[in-house]
């Protein structure tokens, strides 16, 4: 028996994002639940969010984001041999979203699976993809985070309906060419973990239930336990936080984002605040935020960016990547 022929490292070739067209403002929510724009902005930092249409599926959004990333990468469907969709809101347990998305993008017979690590899903999927490419079991992997959280939200519950939203973000992962191996890998080692003892802090009880979140407990955990994970990801990648061009944490709550960023201590880093206009889109939030930053020209090619996903499980994952 022998191993597949590996590569020196994996990198991200391109990003793509998709958001539904319907914008729901805080004022619109205030018409149906007892809340105000000021209250929402001060507690969670969200001004507006995007909500999918009634017939728009997780797969539809994943196809839109994945297609954009694929087009931007310069590769064709035939170059992709693995598709991973990070999602916790698929329409049904089977079939998985990934195989459907692959076929709709014209990708023939790839490895295809869904991955559920809730809001940490994209970082888990990216870590898995990077390892597959590095080990030589995939040449190019399409990684997508896609969620339709709106269908799992109680729209009469003012503590959750103000937070969650829909969308998808994607990245194409490929090998670092041997000639460029000296520049180092484009995706650093993933630092991942979980704690099932806190499973009751964020959950959906059953198929007839909605998202429940113990806000204070999650806030306390996120603002105390995660900056060491973020620092560890930097350490494993050999990148000092002071060298980071950007910090893109899961867009859970602006006050969590700001607290982690303050404790991380990355003075040069632009901190992603996509939540203001996108809400919390779980596994889609990191690639959505990062692709928007790249589109706006805020990050130069080759700059180092720290990703940090965290959420239900509870689960978390972080890695440093370089901008394509």
């Amino acid at each position, binding site marked *: 028996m022998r191993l597949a022929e590996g590569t020196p490292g994996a990198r991200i070739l391109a990003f793509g994002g998709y958001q539904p067209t319907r914008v729901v403002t805080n004022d619109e929510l205030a018409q149906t639940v007892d809340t105000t724009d000021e209250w929402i902005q*001060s*507690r969670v930092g969200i001004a507006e969010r995007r909500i999918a249409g009634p017939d728009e599926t997780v797969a539809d959004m994943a196809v839109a984001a994945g297609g954009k990333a694929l087009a931007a990468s310069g590769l064709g469907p035939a170059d992709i041999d693995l598709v991973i969709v990070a999602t916790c809101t698929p329409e049904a347990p089977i079939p998985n979203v990934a195989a459907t998305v692959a076929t709709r993008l014209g990708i023939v017979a790839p490895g295809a699976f869904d991955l559920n690590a809730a809001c940490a899903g994209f970082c888990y999927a990216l870590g898995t993809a990077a390892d597959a490419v590095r080990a030589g079991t995939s040449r190019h992997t399409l990684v997508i985070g896609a969620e339709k959280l709106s269908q799992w939200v109680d729209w009469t519950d003012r503590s959750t309906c103000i937070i969650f939203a829909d969308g998808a973000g994607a990245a194409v992962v490929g090998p670092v060419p041997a000639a460029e191996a000296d520049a180092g890998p484009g995706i650093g080692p993933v630092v991942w973990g979980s704690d099932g003892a806190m499973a009751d802090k964020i959950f959906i009880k059953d198929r007839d239930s909605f998202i429940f979140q*113990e*806000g*204070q*407990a999650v*806030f*306390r955990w996120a*603002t*105390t336990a995660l900056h060491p994970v973020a620092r560890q990801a930097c350490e494993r990648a050999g990148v000092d936080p002071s060298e980071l061009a950007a910090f893109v944490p899961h867009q859970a709550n602006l006050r969590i984002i700001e607290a982690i960023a303050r404790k991380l201590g990355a003075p040069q880093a632009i901190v992603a605040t996509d939540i203001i206009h996108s809400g919390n889109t779980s596994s889609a939030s990191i690639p959505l935020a990062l692709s928007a930053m790249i589109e706006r020209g805020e990050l130069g090619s080759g700059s180092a960016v720290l990703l940090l996903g965290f959420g239900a499980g509870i689960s978390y994952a972080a890695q440093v990547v370089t901008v394509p």
Partner: protein
Amino acid sequence: MAMTDQEILDGLGEIVDEVAGVPADQVTPDKSFVDDLDIDSLSMVEIAVAAQDKFGVEIPDDELKNLKTVQDVVNYVHNAEVSA
């Protein structure tokens, strides 16, 4: 050695200033966090976390709703230190 109430109050003032930007001299015993200092439930969590670092006293989420005034927190820290 246990801290005096004045020392706890001074430390709490520094924390509130850092967490919520409320000047420490406004953090007086009779002030209500919500009504007088405009501090919400998430900031109370941040204050609890900072208090744990500063005083070595853990304030669980379940206790936070009972701590309405600055004096309530001073008492809580004081009592936790005495029983520790």
